[in-house]
């Protein structure tokens, strides 16, 4: 029990540290947020131009969810690359904590930060468009948000290993993965418009299910029990991906320690 409390305190250390970093890099924070807001509004306006308010909602939900999942994935997958860049990677890796503590601390931060940022963007969207969310089922939406976070954290953990084993190519690869998920998951268009050979990829992307459910919750007020298989699938996916991600991360760490890739220079 004391050991568990110690690990929880340590994982809070990662949250605190990252929010301190946010404070110190406030200029960039404002820039990212500004871009995020403008991007979401622009995408909403594409729908507005057609005069179809349903489409506006469809697009805005896509943009908001993609921003949220993108933050999760990015914060987790870039955590190693960031520490390497700062030069703190060896310090963090030799701390007397479990690796899972470090990973979960980073994920916890990513979720909190992602939620806060999405709320801010949502407020701007609501100010800008006269959106009617009167049909929305917010309870469903929150559950979907939580469940989908698990999967994206798992994916992030897997991607985080790439900068660990290849300091130069790794971060590039994580961006490719993120772009592929964007392409196949139906963020801004129905999957049916994708070329047939690409469609199978959409079935293995957790974002596909997340977006489908989020839209039915927010547009049609669908309750959780109508989502059945999608929700179950996404839950299982998340519960499976986190340990797999952590396991892959461990392998990557062993490899890095074998070949001497942990060090910042060399």
């Amino acid at each position: 029990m004391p050991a568990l409390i110690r690990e929880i305190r340590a994982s809070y250390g990662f949250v605190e540290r990252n929010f301190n970093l946010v404070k110190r890099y406030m200029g960039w924070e404002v820039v990212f947020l500004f871009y995020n807001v403008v991007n979401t509004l622009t995408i909403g306006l594409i729908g507005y131009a057609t005069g179809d308010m349903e489409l506006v909602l469809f697009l805005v939900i896509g943009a908001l969810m993609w921003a949220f999942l993108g933050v999760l994935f990015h914060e987790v997958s870039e955590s190693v690359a960031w520490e390497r860049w700062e030069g703190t990677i060896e310090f963090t890796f030799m701390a007397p904590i479990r690796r899972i503590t470090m990973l979960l601390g980073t994920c916890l931060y990513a979720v909190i930060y992602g939620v806060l940022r999405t709320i801010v963007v949502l407020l701007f969207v609501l100010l800008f468009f006269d959106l009617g969310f009167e049909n929305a089922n917010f309870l469903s939406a929150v559950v979907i948000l939580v469940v989908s976070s698990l999967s994206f954290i798992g994916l992030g953990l897997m991607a985080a290993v790439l900068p660990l084993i290849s300091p130069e190519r790794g971060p590039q690869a994580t961006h490719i993965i993120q772009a592929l998920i964007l392409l196949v998951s139906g963020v801004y268009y129905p999957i049916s418009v994708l070329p047939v050979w690409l469609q199978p990829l959409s079935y293995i992307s957790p974002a596909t299910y997340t977006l489908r459910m989020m839209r039915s919750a927010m547009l049609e007020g669908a309750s959780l029990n109508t989502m059945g298989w999608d929700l179950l699938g996404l839950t299982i996916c998340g519960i499976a991906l986190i340990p797999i991600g952590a396991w892959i991360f461990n392998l990557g760490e062993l490899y890095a320690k074998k070949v001497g890739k942990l060090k910042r220079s060399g």
Partner: protein
Amino acid sequence: MIHKALQCRGVTKTFIVDGEEGGIIKRIRNRKNRFRAVDDISFTVEAGEIFGIIGPNGSGKSTLIRLISTLLLPNEGYISVFGNDVVKDSRKVRRLINRVTVEASFFKKLSALENLTYAARLYDVPIKEAREKIEYILGRLQFPTKKLKEPLENLSRGMQQKVAIARALFTRPTLLLLDEPTTGLDPRSKREVQAFVREAQSEFGATILFTTHDMEEAESICGRIAIIKDGRFVALDTAEGLKRLAGNGSGKELTMEDVFFILTGEEWEGKEDKGEGEVMENAGVN
């Protein structure tokens, strides 16, 4: 059973040389293309000892310390810290150690205080207690208190080094790994760090592994000193013992610097009579 503070047996670490030679395929085929940064090193450090390692640049000092810190895995050999295998029980080992390196490893935009708070969380020291200890240590190192809240990137290299030393000391590690802790410090701060090292030893019985390029410093604070060259220990003894070994019975008064030149076989025009050759063959290594 009482464990030795640190035990290394036949420790070897090789790195793949990423030279000009060909692409990946060629490199994988050419398995021999490995460079031995640490080559079959064996030694034992007793609890409470201050053990020095000196040697030329690139001789393998930092690599050896990284192996002990669980940041690298040895290719061959065995390392234990108070009986815990650094590979199998790495988390137990990490509880016992802390390390100071030459390169400052901080979040550059965060202040010293924010960086140290992060360290306190990881090492499970209550923030208030951590802060008191840190302020005490930094105070003695002449670190201006008002700089505690400034981003670390604004501090001079020596000031950053002081923060790094405070970060390692306030956790009271049982085995303290100091990789050139005094490089870049002014003479007074250097003395103060040396005093801290002695106090860590006498007050909480810490065992200390210490590398430095300052020969006088090595002589004054280390009980025993190993001389490393090309990844191998070429000599291991007290400063007195090393001087006798290097003097080779000539009875001449040698400084530690003379000893360094003689035992590592480094040429130095300024010195005439070197007894190179005779004492080189792994003399004195246990």
